[in-house]
Every structure is written in structure tokens, then in C-alpha cells.
């Protein structure tokens, strides 16, 4: 059986959660288009990527995202919600 270990960095954890990713990191409050952080913030980008890759070696719960806060990111944003039919 083949398979490739993956880790997702998502800024829309509720939306991504519908597909139940095997491993996922939600950098709390990052806006869409800023998966790794803001432009030029290399230290922050490196930390986010280190944390995401680190999930490969941890006992995470498949299908659920791990939320980590990064105060250096600055202003935070509400993630998009899943639209439900009424």
C-alpha cells in the first residue's frame, strides 16, 4: 500500500476540516493568502513551517487541525465559516 505523509497549513480550519486532513496546522488568525504569515516575515514563516513539519513526528488526531498562536503576526482575522443550507 502506498501513501505519502502530508501536513496541511490551513487558514480556513472549518472549511478544510470537511475534508478531514490527516495532519493540519491552523496558524490562528492568519488571513486567507497568508498561510505562512505576512510578506518578508521570514522568521515567522520559518517558525510556521517548522511547526507544520513537526506535526509529522507528533501523535496528532487525524482529521483535526492543531491551532497555534503566533503573536508576531499582528492583527488577526476571523476564518471563513462553512456555509450551511437553511
Amino acid at each position: 500500500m502506498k501513501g505519502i505523509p502530508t501536513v496541511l497549513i490551513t487558514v480556513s480550519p472549518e472549511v478544510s476540516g470537511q475534508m478531514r486532513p490527516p495532519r493540519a496546522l491552523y496558524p490562528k488568525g492568519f488571513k486567507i493568502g497568508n498561510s505562512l504569515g505576512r510578506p518578508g516575515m521570514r522568521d515567522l514563516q520559518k517558525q510556521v513551517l517548522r511547526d507544520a513539519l513537526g506535526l509529522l513526528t507528533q501523535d496528532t488526531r487525524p482529521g483535526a487541525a492543531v491551532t497555534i498562536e503566533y503573536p508576531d503576526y499582528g492583527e488577526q482575522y476571523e476564518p471563513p465559516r462553512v456555509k450551511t443550507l437553511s
Partner: protein
Amino acid sequence: MTISRKCVPFTPFDGELSKSTIAIVTAGGVHLKDQEGFNIADELGDLTYREIPPDVDSSQLMVTHHHYDHADADEDINVVFPIDVLRELESEGFIGGIAKKHIGYMGYTMQLKAMYEGTAREIANEIDRGSRADAVVLTGG
């Protein structure tokens, strides 16, 4: 074959990051400037993908995607496609290496079945056969 939506396709990672090769697959519409852009005129979306080489100059990458604001990615592609960040982690010894192939596609589609059963499998095969990746980082827009 039908894949259950209730099944999490979890593949264990048994290696050490410092000895592992990592690939990036992004749904953020990233591609080389000299590659054909994604078809944003089609309301159904674009099911194609682009291969991105490991030695790419990040200044030669761009985004074609009209379902998120990619102004920040236009300024620094690493916010959605962290190839330079990955290189720094390699130079620091945090990871073992950069995979031989990375993938960009446009993660907006109204053709979910074709994306899930077609494009996604093609991308997985590209990574499995051509990239020598031990693990993959997935990003969206």
C-alpha cells in the same frame, strides 16, 4: 474505487525530519511566469496543475487565482509557497532536502468529483514517482 469521505487517509511518517526530503503542493494558484496561467475565465474552475522545479528562482513564480486576495503572495510568494523558507530549513539541517518536484494548482473548482478523483490522484502520482519526497506540505490560498 470509491473513497469513503469518513476515512482519514493517514500515512504514518517514520523517518527523521533532518534526513527527509520535503515537497510543497499548493492550491494557491502558483506557477512559473513562463508557464500557462490557470484558466480563471471558466466558472467551473481549472483542473490542471503545474510542476515547479526545486531550483526555481522564487522571483519567477506568480499566482493566477481569482478567489483570494494574492497581493501578499505577489510581494512574497513564500506566504503561500514557502520554497525559500524550505531552503533555509534545509541549510539549518532541520530537514534533509528539497524534493525534485513541487506542484501548484488552483484550488477553486465546481468540479469536485473530477478534482478529487482525477487531479488529486495525478498530483499524488507526480509526487510519488517524480519528486522523491518523504513528506509533503500542503498549502491553500
